[in-house]
């Protein structure tokens, strides 16, 4: 799992707090497109569009997995990579019985399973970012919905094999928590989201109790994110969240997703000086230490936080560094937000795009 995948906890918790509404009445352009007939047609088209070329054999599948498992700028390539990875794990025919698992699991197989599961978590994050902030057309909605379902089905298969190891392996417990948060972020009923968050919190508390340093401090980061978002009357605790996030930062000081979450928590508490100090550290982190898509995404986000913290010069530096990486790696997704139904896009009076505006 790459670093940015860890931010899913925050988003999953939000989604669990307030889900989406019931089906639409007919009338507007958008509701017309949500008829069962239209959805079925687009779903069929999407299934055809996202189908991956057939590959056979464990070695070939793993090679195809490794080639694109971190291509976070290209959901199609990543979708196929995760599919190939999951199929490769199927070929290992690993046991689902705990005793048998402990007796026969080879360390390498366990690690590979966790790696493929981690790639699915990244893929959930990529899909989540592909949803529009305002309105997505039916074509995109059908594709993303289908991708989400397929990814969840594959990941469930992986989890079925990893579950017997959870009580023995802290890393497996952490990834189960991350999976529960990531996979219920979209396309999930509210009650299922609530249950997933509750189970994930329990897992995280146990995992941190055993070893907070596991997976570079993933436990404190995820639990910190959840506690920062939950309201006070549902167990949210911003001060406890900040303590956990500071622990995560100490364990993994170059992880920009930790910077992202901790800076936001500081700003929420109006601790601007602490936020600025962390932002200054973030701007010095070498892009090669990150997945490049994560780097440009985080520089965009952190640049915005720098503006909110009253540091336009820092924001400018982050913007420049982001632009440099985007220019050198044109495959990366700049995450432009385009207009739909009157919303978004360039300012009609100035022509400036939201990402250009300070």
């Amino acid at each position, binding site marked *: 799992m790459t670093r940015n995948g860890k931010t899913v906890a925050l*988003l999953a918790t*939000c*989604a669990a*707090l*307030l*889900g*989406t*509404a*019931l089906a*639409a009445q007919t*009338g*507007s*352009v*958008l*509701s*017309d*497109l*949500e008829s069962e007939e239209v959805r079925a*047609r*687009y779903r069929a088209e999407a299934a055809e569009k996202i189908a991956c070329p057939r590959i056979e054999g464990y070695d070939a599948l793993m090679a195809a997995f490794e080639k694109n498992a971190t291509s976070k700028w290209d959901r199609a390539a990543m979708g196929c990579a995760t599919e190939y990875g999951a199929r490769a794990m199927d070929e290992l025919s690993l046991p689902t019985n705990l005793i048998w698992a402990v007796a026969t699991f080879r360390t390498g197989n366990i690690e590979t399973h966790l790696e493929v599961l981690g790639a699915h978590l990244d893929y959930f994050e990529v899909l989540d970012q592909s949803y*529009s*902030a305002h*309105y*997505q*057309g*039916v*074509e*995109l909605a059908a594709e993303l919905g289908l991708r989400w379902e397929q990814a969840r089905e594959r990941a469930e298969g992986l989890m079925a094999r990893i579950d017997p190891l959870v009580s023995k392996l802290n890393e497996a417990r952490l990834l189960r928590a991350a999976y529960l948060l990531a996979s219920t972020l979209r396309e999930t009923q*509210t*009650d299922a989201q*609530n249950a997933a968050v509750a189970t994930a919190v329990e897992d995280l508390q146990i995992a941190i109790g055993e070893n907070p340093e596991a997976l570079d401090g993933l436990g404190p980061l995820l639990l910190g994110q959840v506690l920062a978002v939950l*309201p*006070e*009357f*549902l167990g949210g605790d911003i001060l406890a969240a900040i303590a956990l996030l500071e622990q995560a930062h100490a364990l993994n000081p170059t992880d920009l997703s930790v910077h992202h979450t901790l800076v936001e928590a500081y700003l*929420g508490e109006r601790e601007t000086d602490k936020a600025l100090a962390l932002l200054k550290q973030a701007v010095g982190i070498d892009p090669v230490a990150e997945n490049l898509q994560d780097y440009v995404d985080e520089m965009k*986000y*952190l*640049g*915005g*936080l720098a*503006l*909110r913290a009253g540091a336009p010069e820092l924001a400018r530096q982050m913007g420049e560094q982001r632009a440099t990486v985007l220019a050198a790696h044109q495959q990366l997704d700049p995450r*432009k937000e*385009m*207009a*739909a*139904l*009157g*919303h*978004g*896009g*360039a300012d*009609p*009076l100035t*022509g*400036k795009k*939201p990402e250009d*505006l*300070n």
Partner: protein
Amino acid sequence: MKTLSTLHGAVLASLLSSTALAAELTVPSGGSIQDVVNQAAPGDTILVEPGIYHQSVYVDKPRITLRGLRDGDNWALLDGEMKLNDGIIASGHSIVIDGFRVTGYKGNGIMTQGANNFEISNNYVEGAFYGIFPQFGRNGLVIGNTVTGAEDAGIYVGMSDNVDVIDNVAFGNVMGIEFENTRNALMAGNHVYDNAAGITLTLVPGLPVKDAYSQVIRDNRIIGNNHVNFAPASSIAAGVPSGTGILVVGPDNITIENNEIADNDNVGVFVADLITFGMDSDPKLDPYSDGVRVMGNTWRGNGENMNGMLAEMLAATGKTGIEVLAMGKGRDSCVLPGDGIDTLGTRRWQDCLGDNSVAGFATARLEGGAEEPEYTLEQKGRLTYLAVCTGCHAYDSVLHGPSMQSIQAIYDGDPSGMVGYITDPVRKREGFPEMPPQTYLGEETLDAIASYILEDLGK
């Protein structure tokens, strides 16, 4: 003295242009409103006789008054027959849109886009995605309208400044009245009932305007907003919880005073951060709702029949009957202790003081009005693209029509070909509605749109 005489001349010219030379034009029953708009000069009044008009109307001239005449139950009725997207769209400054009944449009009932000093009054708008939708406007008045059946907001003030929304009725919408990314605005004397949420005050990510503040919500009746949320699932409005009187998500410096807030099944006032709704994707927005003052309202029967997502969320607390629910990290908010209301999540809130009162706040509009800049063709292209084209076309995927990316590929280097198609479209694919001709926009605007789409959009 020279200055004085120059001033006299300017005043005289202004009077002449705005009154003495203003003409009154009449559209006969069922005639083409657009034809008369095209003939009109700035300052003219267009009277539309009672009758049925299956049309879209576009006004890009300043100081036009477009008035529907009414004879008892016979209105000047614009009916899009669920084929047309927009009823009336205006980008001319000082537009007045008064007295129409508008029904059967798939996008906007009445929309102003970039029009300053606008007035939208005494209309009855049914259906549509957005009922009455002033956007990118400075200094406006929305008064005396009735709006129902909108799949998003009935009255939706977006990215605007200095707007009064007064004495309207909004019922049966997903959101009755909304201020979105809007600064300095007044909502007063409105009756808002049987919507999924009565009033929403929001700061939405990904838009050019990055803040929302200074809104006064006073003397409204916000009653029984428990309608099922019927927004399309893929829309942002689908996340609005039904049974909410007033929802505040993101703006700052909000006063909610002297309203009657009753019988909203889940909660009277719900104050949240953008993070609560998963809307924190835009880092240039301050996600916290700061400075929300709730004081002197009349409360009755709110939160007594909790259901849906809010009920599920609050089940663990065992609390119902909540008048003010707060979730988030907003600061400097307050309730008036004497009001004796039940609150949840307000541990960091304070007690309001008497001098917080805005009971006497009469208008958010600017004295003397806003400036009225003349838009360039480039701006006109962008404004009209946003108002009209995005109703059916998304940038990178199919909506009701093909994606803008595919249109750019088809007409690359051929703007006149694009204008030709927009003017006289033909069905190209089965299963999609035929695009209505957009000739009402006029040649100059169509050229500007084509130029914007082919040269600027997404570049």
